[in-house]
């Protein structure tokens, strides 16, 4: 009896703790959504409540009249291109690391791993100067090129880890059938590696979509700004117009939310593969 009570108490305690963190995780997201639908007066009255009279007209106002559709398109193109190019470069390099044994393999792999840790802060000044001298500041190409480098090492590392697990027999069999390296990569490794590739794709897309530091410096023209920079630019002009700022945030978050719900397994795989393997 006492044991049962103890177990019940511990179960309640555990679930209570978990539920508190569910609430903490969700509340700011909830707040963002409801704030976008409330008037200023209602917001100050009660921040927690659902809006009495949801003001949906903020959305067309922001997206069309304020020209936010452009930032959405910029972000899609930006994150999309960075993701695709990163995956292509990662696949080629990972194939070399996983399948071949060659002079300098260890050293080159260490070089790649170093890139895993390096951040925008370490490269900001030279990258800015490089883009400036190539006349690439405030261009789409200038936005995409350095951003790829920030995720490339992660991509190579993730794909190498995965390709190493591909059974050697499969590789040997394909070789006996007369596959060239490129065919082996395209017809064997990529199909087998699809789970890892999709994990890499969603994580890379998320990172780029949410990235702020380099775009803030490179894209100072409004026509070119991705959503993250655009929101901060917008906030600078409308700081106290909370419902409009919230609306821009929701517009930036909804595509990620949809992506996350649809590809949770891939997210989980991508995050844990690098760490635990």
């Amino acid at each position, binding site marked *: 009896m006492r044991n049962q009570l103890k177990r019940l108490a511990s179960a309640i305690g555990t679930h209570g*703790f*978990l539920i508190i963190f*569910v609430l*903490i*995780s969700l509340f*700011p*997201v909830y*707040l*963002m959504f409801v704030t976008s639908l409330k008037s200023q007066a209602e*917001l*100050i009255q009660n*921040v*927690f409540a659902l809006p009495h009279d949801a003001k949906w007209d903020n959305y067309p106002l922001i997206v069309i009249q304020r020209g936010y559709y452009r930032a959405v398109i910029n972000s899609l193109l930006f994150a999309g291109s960075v993701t695709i190019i990163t995956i292509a*470069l990662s696949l*080629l*390099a990972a*194939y*070399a690391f996983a*399948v*071949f*044994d*060659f*002079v300098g393999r260890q050293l*080159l*792999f260490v*070089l*790649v791993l*170093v890139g895993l*840790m*390096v*951040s*925008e*802060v*370490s*490269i*900001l*000044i*030279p990258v800015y*100067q*490089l883009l400036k001298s190539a006349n690439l500041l405030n261009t789409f190409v200038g936005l995409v*090129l350095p951003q*790829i*480098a920030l995720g*490339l090492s992660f991509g190579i590392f993730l794909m190498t880890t995965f390709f190493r697990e591909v059974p050697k027999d499969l590789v040997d069999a394909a070789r006996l059938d007369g596959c060239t390296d490129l065919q082996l990569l395209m017809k064997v490794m990529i199909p087998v590696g699809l789970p890892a590739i999709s994990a890499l794709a969603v994580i890379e897309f*998320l990172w780029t979509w*949410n990235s*702020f*530091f380099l775009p803030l410096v490179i894209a100072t023209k409004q026509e070119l700004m991705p959503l*993250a920079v655009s929101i*901060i630019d917008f906030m600078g002009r409308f700081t106290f117009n*909370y419902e409009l700022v919230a609306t821009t*945030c929701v517009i*930036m*978050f909804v595509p*990620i939310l949809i992506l996350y719900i649809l590809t949770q397994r891939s997210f*989980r795989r991508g*995050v*844990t593969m690098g*760490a*635990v393997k």
Partner: protein
Amino acid sequence: MIDARGRLGPYLFLAPAILYLGIWIYYPIAKNFYLSFLGSDSTRTGDYYFVGLENYRKLLSDDLFHRALLHNLAWVGLSIVIPVVIGLVLAVLLVGRRGRLFYAAVFFLPVTVAPIMAAIVWGWIYNPTFGALNQLLDIIGLSGLSQPWLGDTGTALVAVNMIGSWGYYGFCALIFLAGLQSIDPEIYEAARIDGANSFQSFWSITLPLLRPTLMFVIVYTIIGSMKFFDIIYVATKGGPDNSTQIVAVYMFDLFIRQGEVTYAAAMSMVLTAIILLMSLVVIRNVMRRA
């Protein structure tokens, strides 16, 4: 394994990625290192000349830089005490439990929220006039604790770290969960038969076996705490009165607003050195397992 003698194959496959990293990572780091030894009379003209260690000497006597670096270190401490520990506790509670994937998915949701967005929304939560935090304190009868969380030099750094922690514990939980699931349950069974209670088995089984994962998370947290920027830039810009100033924001300000290019380069070099040093730990671990 295919023999590499005389074969170009692997190098051809590697060339695009390595060249790419060369242009956008290795060259900038080298250039940054070089710039940190230069100086100029006028910050705008870009006529640089060699000044040796002058910029580094300046760093030694720059009080604001010291404060900023100290805040970065405080951020390391706070991030290990709060999100890493929370993530570990959540993972331990979740492992083997029904519905763990649902919980983990919810805890990971904040990780997908852009840091700039987290900074904006938490800015409202902390807001002194309509902020949810002060209203919550009112409701539970602790209105005496109400304050402008981000506007007070005493609370700003911790308050802003909470924003970062919110976007990080779910990441830690997910990694710990994966680490815990790779531990053989039979070990726990054996310990239970030997009469170990759950605290004992956590201390003498879980923690030692989780060591590599724990190591990874801690090193990753330190590196992340050195280079983070977005949340501070959006939430406080280093203020009030520099109480949340960090190296990345200070360096950004020197470079973009004040045009102190070479001094900013020296500053970012210090961060890079710390990050590279920490990376060595990770790389040694990875190579040992590779």
